[in-house]
């Protein structure tokens, strides 16, 4: 059986944004082709005037860049980096088109590129990636940036974005979960070294791997549920990828 990636993703507006009447400022995009996978997730910065627009622009450009690199046979971490660079350029172009400064379209960005069980990740800002790996089981593949204050995060539009971008490479990955910062309090144990909260991820990967119809609706229901809202007032987005036929 040829391995193939299956994905499910959803986003939900947080109760903080429901109260203030603003929309969900997370954006995500996914592309799969057989054993090739690209996922982009961005969280628009609340203080930026067009944070949601910047996030949407970033994920569209990142996905386009990732797909081009994967099809050209670029190594996964290099492809993820190139996708982030494409997103950085696109957001700056979007700012020029709108006659505004790029910081008004500020967002975080996570790009994951996979070919089979090899994964490259480019990540700037908070949110994170947890993997289900053959070697370690559940593992944090890319940890949230943590500043002194919650409003301190690194962003794609920064002039220092290349220095602040964390690029990593992983092998033996049979499951991936990208999540925005609204999810990270409930799914991680955030100590000095963040670790996945296993009772969260084990059933999440197991159920996603069933490839059932309506999983996206079900995931949205989870993210919008009262118990998730109780845990964080922020928007919540989660994209899960499961590699079928990767072996145990």
């Amino acid at each position, binding site marked *: 059986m040829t391995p193939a990636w299956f994905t499910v993703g959803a986003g939900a507006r947080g*109760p903080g944004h429901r109260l203030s009447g603003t929309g969900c400022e997370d954006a995500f995009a996914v592309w799969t082709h057989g054993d090739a996978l690209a996922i982009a997730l961005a969280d628009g*910065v609340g203080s930026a005037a067009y944070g949601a627009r910047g996030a949407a622009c970033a994920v569209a450009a990142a996905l386009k860049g990732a797909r081009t690199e994967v099809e050209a046979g670029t190594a996964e971490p290099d492809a993820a980096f190139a996708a982030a660079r494409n997103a950085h350029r696109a957001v700056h172009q979007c700012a020029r088109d709108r006659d505004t400064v790029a910081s008004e379209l500020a967002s975080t960005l996570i790009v994951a590129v996979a070919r089979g069980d090899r994964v490259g990740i480019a990540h700037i800002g908070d949110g994170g990636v947890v993997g289900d790996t053959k070697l370690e089981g559940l593992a944090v593949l890319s940890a949230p940036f*943590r500043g002194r204050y*919650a*409003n301190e*995060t690194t962003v794609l539009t920064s002039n220092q974005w290349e220095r602040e971008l964390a690029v990593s490479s992983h092998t033996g990955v049979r499951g991936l979960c990208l999540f925005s910062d609204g999810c990270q309090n409930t799914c991680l144990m955030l100590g*000095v070294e963040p670790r996945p909260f296993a009772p969260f991820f084990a059933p999440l990967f197991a159920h996603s791997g069933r490839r059932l119809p309506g999983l996206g609706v*079900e995931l949205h229901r989870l993210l919008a549920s009262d118990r998730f809202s109780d845990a964080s007032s922020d928007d919540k987005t989660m994209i899960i990828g499961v590699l079928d036929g990767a072996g145990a």
Partner: protein
Amino acid sequence: MGYELVEFNHHNMEPRQDLLLVVDTSSSMSGDIDEVNRGLQTLQAALQEDPLARKCVEVAVVTFGGMPVVRQSFVELARFEAPTLSTQGATPMGAALMQSLDLVDAHGALLREVGIPRRSRPWVFLITDGQPTDGDSWRAARDRIHRAERAKELVFFAVGTETADFSVLDKLGPRGAKKLRDQRWHELFLWVIDSMRSISRSAIGEQVPLLPTRGDDGSGWEAV
């Protein structure tokens, strides 16, 4: 049998907003202490009812009447019980402020250790009707407050009644002191409550402007 099987890490990891009340409980505050106690109870009730504030605001109370006392270390609002304060003795304001700043630093270290970020800078809120009686120790506190403000590590407020020594209070923090109008303690506590609500509702990264402390129509708690 689906995503409902997912279990959450239930530790409250919501970014925190610290509120430290530094309350003068010296003998001269005897006429005001009941109002202050009512204000603390109002603060507890109002913020515990607020679904966002109760998860992110942590409150601590330091008093100085005879000696500085940590009446309540930082605690999540959901578990905060307003202490009933009484008055006695002199006004060791300098020592109380130094102890308060230690408390803020220690809480910051604890939050960092467990990986909880702060929502915005801790608030240190001084309430007094008098002047320091512990010599020049207020000067060391003043220097530390100004350093911490410059480093954006806290926001300091000093509020004095009509009888307070504003020649000292004005120097403690970079934004000077405010004078309480006509013993409007209730309005003062409502302002603190609304400020905490605003911060807990703010988007991450949003600069939350201070709420007005007085209105043209005579409302508010600050004396002109």
